[in-house]
């Protein structure tokens, strides 16, 4: 089983930092990289109703990360790897 990492590539997310996440795979350990399936997805519509949450948005499994950056995403990945004991 792989953890799905979906990076929002909609305009707001992309411009506000999502562009940096296109190289996410380069920052993962070999084990982490094996456990995830990374893909870019179109706007998940969170940018419109963001009350306190801000783009970029990334979905790791079903956990939505706002103001995502490489570090935050990596942390969540390793948390889930541990939780699922992958």
């Amino acid at each position, binding site marked *: 089983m792989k953890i799905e990492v979906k990076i929002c*590539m*909609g*305009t*707001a997310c*992309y*411009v*506000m*930092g999502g*562009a*940096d996440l*296109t*190289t996410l795979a380069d920052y993962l350990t070999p084990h982490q990289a094996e456990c995830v399936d990374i893909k*870019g997805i*179109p*706007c998940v519509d969170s940018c*419109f109703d963001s009350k306190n949450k801000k783009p970029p948005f990334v979905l790791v499994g079903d956990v939505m990360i706002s103001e995502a*950056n490489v570090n935050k995403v990596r942390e969540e990945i390793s948390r889930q790897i541990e939780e699922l004991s992958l």
Partner: protein
Amino acid sequence: MNNAKQIRRDLISRVARLLEDRTLVEKIDRLPLEMRPRNQKAIRCCCHKERAVLKYRTMALLGFNTSDETDELTPLSVYAKKAEERTKEQYTPVQLTVVDEACSSCVKNNYIVSNLCRACVARPCMYACKKDAITVTDKAFIDQDKCVSCGLCKEACPFHAIIYQPIPCEESCPVGAIKRNENGIEYIDDSKCIYCGKCMVACPFGAIMEKSFLVEIINSIKEGKKVVAMVAPALAGQFQVDMGKMITAIKELGFSDVIEVAKGANETTEHEAKEFLERMEEGAPFMTTSCCPAWVNLVNKHMPEMKPFVSETPSPMVYTARYVKANMPDAITVFVSPCVGKRSEVYRTPEVDYVVSFEELGSWFMARNIDVMKCESAELDTTINSDGRRFAYTNGVMQSVKNYVEHPEEIKDIVISGLDKATIRTLKGYVKSCPGNFVEVMSCAGGCVNGCDVIANPRVATRQVDNFAKSMEEGK
């Protein structure tokens, strides 16, 4: 990405939204308050400081230098009104402005004493200092008013207790154009600045801003004028979509036409190649490219002896603009740019009216909720030779010229990818003796995909531009 950049993009998109709604003058004064509400935790000392910074950043977005301010109480709405009434003739050549409120005046001098200092008996630092700036009590102390940042004390300390603290913007400037004034605030000496944009990227406080044309561009579109976007080749790598979608997205902003500057790059190639052969025939030792404005600025301001060797062929942007003006004389031409350097070139190019940077374009899409991924693919210009599309990255111009000439083996190429103090020294040496005969110079390491206003990771962008160029070749 960093926080300073995020704030800038948020701000650009808010200004664009007000312009789109035609409520700029009416609502601009509230903008800093909306972005920094009183109850939000401040990153700087307090929300008032942050609002002041936002005010001056907004001034730059309205096309003013911070130094244009004569009275601190003048509200943004007054500048907004002035911007809306401004004519092209009133524009000043200075394209970068230091937001002095934002400049943290990092350090006055570069040398500081760390707590590794043992207050040793020998006190070599004190004796090394020629300016009598050091006293030692329980620890060495440098009198910041006397210190001249010579570094002799650092060399002298056996404990390595004195450290060099860089000033990011000054460190990044290849020509020493950005300096501290008597208050410790940075300022840019326009007679030296080559508009490479490196200081803007380097400043961790986002204190250096480009002057923008957003007001002119969006208002022209709103007034129903014919506005044509000329997109730099590097744009092909900026979003995770193909160029066709990009063009549709730009048209949705209200541009009546979108033209790839790769088209003009084909013309640059042709003329550049001819010029090169002519010069060689005349016995010139070498020739350099001229499409990077920061390089041309460097020659004009710091290396006059290089001038005779720089190609006189106009840049791809200029050829593209001439084409547009010839075919649509009433069109307003807007160059979609990777860098601030191009703003300085536009200032001396009558065919190009305005510039919008990649970053501004992205923020403007955001303001309009245009999702580039969901746009339809527009038709592309199949008459363009894809070599022109490769001008986006280093070696692109060189390769294009090589592909054009009959005897590419006669070109002895040198490619300078990125201007810094070392490469500038190398280039100066070429005037006396050059190991090649054709020199390509790009101010940004890697080429325009790494310009100061790009959105995408340069490596990813390079790959994408290349794939696009290839796909267009195969399509033929």
